[in-house]
């Protein structure tokens, strides 16, 4: 057909093969959705529990305690130095299970895709999830996909839920934190937040900051196997170290004193934070956690942590006290003390 001597293609809603971008029909239950499930999801995630393509995964359980958690991932941009939304969605939920002292068993993955998104991008994200799940040894055993109209999403949103098994005798809870406990941090802070900000805003920093996104369940398992009496664990995601310590101090009704000079922050992250007026203690991490353990086990805990790449720079940075309940006090680099409070709203980059 030609109109004005130009070739004309009908723009009516005929079935479109949609080989290159996400179509609404990819979530509609028809042929396109089956193609997406077979060609993209199953090919990447394949495992025996997923194979039956049932409405859910089933497995027998032994006696014991289960841990169950969920988290949604909406990071922008989808790809950033050191990771992407896919690996983040796997590692984040695995880490939430690990913070309960659990051995992660299985994950679910729910996708909300935006119409018009390149299928290559979907493929890259899914491959990255599959790779992260394989590396962590935690299979994705059930899933779901929905497609929303163009402009109603931000490319891809992912929800993952996870189930884990807490070993007999292990209890990891804020209420178990004791006065005199050592506060340890598993590595240097702020890399994830700075890495994401740098690509989002097109900023360049010396030293190429990469996200610290990583699973930490094997570190926790090693701590438990090594006989460390863990009182509490918490991953340092949104709000960073300062927010987490405040939450834990409030939950435990105890005080915490933290030595600023003992908190590990890499040089490029410090530089970027100084430049932007951000405080690394409030910047997000995706592969870091704090541990509260009895003071006499502090050194042993550090030794176990430092055996693992993701916690090679673990440090002893503070102590739990029964003074000033619910308050976190920072001993500054110049030797004075101040309250380390919760942040109000988002950290805003400063003006000059």
């Amino acid at each position, binding site marked *: 057909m030609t109109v004005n001597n130009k070739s004309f293609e009908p723009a009516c809603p005929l079935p479109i093969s949609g080989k290159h971008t996400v179509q609404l029909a990819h979530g509609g239950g028809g042929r396109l959705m089956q193609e997406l499930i077979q060609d993209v999801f199953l090919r990447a995630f394949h495992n025996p529990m997923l194979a039956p393509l049932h409405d859910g995964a089933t497995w027998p359980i032994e006696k014991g305690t289960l841990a169950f958690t969920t988290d949604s991932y909406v990071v922008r941009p989808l790809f950033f130095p050191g990771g992407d939304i896919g690996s983040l969605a796997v590692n984040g939920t695995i880490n939430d299970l690990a913070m309960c002292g659990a051995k992660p068993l299985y994950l679910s993955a729910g996708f909300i895709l935006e119409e018009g998104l390149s299928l290559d991008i979907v493929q890259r994200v899914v491959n990255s999830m599959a790779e992260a799940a394989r590396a962590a040894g935690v299979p994705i055993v059930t899933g779901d996909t929905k497609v929303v109209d163009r402009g109603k999403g931000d490319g891809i949103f992912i929800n993952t839920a996870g189930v884990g098994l807490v070993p007999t005798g292990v209890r990891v809870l804020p209420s178990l934190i004791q006065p005199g406990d050592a506060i340890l941090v598993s590595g240097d802070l702020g890399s994830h937040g700075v890495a994401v900000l740098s690509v989002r805003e097109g900023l360049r920093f010396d030293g190429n900051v990469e996200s610290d996104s990583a699973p930490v369940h094997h570190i926790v398992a090693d701590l438990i196997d090594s006989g460390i009496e863990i009182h509490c664990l918490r991953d340092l995601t949104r709000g960073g170290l300062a927010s987490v310590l405040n939450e834990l101090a409030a939950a435990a009704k105890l005080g915490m004193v933290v030595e600023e000079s003992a908190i590990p922050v890499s040089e490029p992250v410090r530089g970027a934070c100084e430049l932007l007026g951000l405080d690394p203690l409030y910047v997000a991490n995706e592969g870091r956690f704090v541990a509260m353990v009895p*003071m006499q086990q502090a050194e042993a805990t550090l030794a176990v942590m430092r055996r693992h790449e993701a916690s090679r720079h673990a440090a002893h940075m503070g102590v739990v006290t029964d003074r000033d309940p619910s308050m976190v006090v920072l*001993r500054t680099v*110049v030797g004075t003390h101040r*309250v380390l*409070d919760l942040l109000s709203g988002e950290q805003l980059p400063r*003006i*000059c």
Partner: protein
Amino acid sequence: MKYVDEFRDRAVATALAERIKKTIRRPWTIMEVCGGQTHAIVRFGLDSLLPKNLTLVHGPGCPVCVTSVSLIDQAVCIASLPKVIFCSFGDMLRVPGSRGDLFGVKSAGGDVRIIYSPLDALELARKTPDREVVCFAVGFETTAPAWAMAVTQAKQSGMRNFSLLIAHVLVPPAMEAILSSPQNRIQGFLAAGHVCTVMGYEEYEAIAQRYRVPIVVTGFEPLDVLEGVAMLVGQLEEGRVEVENQYARSVSREGNKQAKTIVDEVFEPAARAWRGIGEIPASGLRLKSAYNAYDAELKFQRELAQLAEGKEDPECRSGLVLQGLLKPPDCPAFGTRCTPEQPLGAPMVSSEGACAAYYRYRSHATLEYRCEGQVNDRQ
């Protein structure tokens, strides 16, 4: 980190604090002009190292804080227009005007973006020729050269979709306004190091002599502030009135000539209303007439004409705080009806605002703390 760690050294800080204690004999009240210095003082607890008879007063040196409600209202009005991409430094987004803040505009669908440099905004205008890119040009003498650069580049390339809503303020007129107030109790100034990096400090010599106040140009790291205080206390005790330069690694007497030249090329002094203080003659900048095409107030004259006069929240005492007449915790609304989540005034919002500094670092009773020494040093 190089150029940072050496200015945060604990032993040197203690030694400087000792020097101040040995020098001081009488009570003195001094003002740190810049909000960056206020934050260093509160963040590092430097005031707890200083003798009790030295009173530090926080000055008006936060450009976000002193931007008038009317200007915020203008920004909100322009940012709400469908064809506009409104660019601002992050601090300004949460500052309340009388018709809400820029975050409100963003959540209502306005295109409001955080920028880090004026040249980023220029690039954005280049990439979006069918949109009007309007920038909230806020700052002291420090940021003026970058805005001037952006405007000259826009003019050279004949761009028509780029303009500035100017809220620029100048430091010396504000210092003079404080000194000539009958309520003034400031006996010496720590001048703002970054501003002087651009402008130099020749201007301050006349102010020092006219009002008989010693001035020390001071940096922003803990040791800078402590050394600045030590130099200022030294002058006060010896009865000297001079402009001294603590921040010599960055500041020269004549400042940055290139930066000053481009500012003079593009801007001229103009009266400016300061939030909570009122209008101060020749205390702001405006574009010279050759650059009128880049003035958002002129470009959006028709839309702005419909705006009612902006009113500050009557409960907010930020004017007194900015003049050093009230400490933030002494304000009846502090931490109760005024918090960073629900601010009555800008000093509770800005990263350099005195109220925010107190709220963030001092929202609890003053701490008398001795560390138990159980914490290891960095491994």
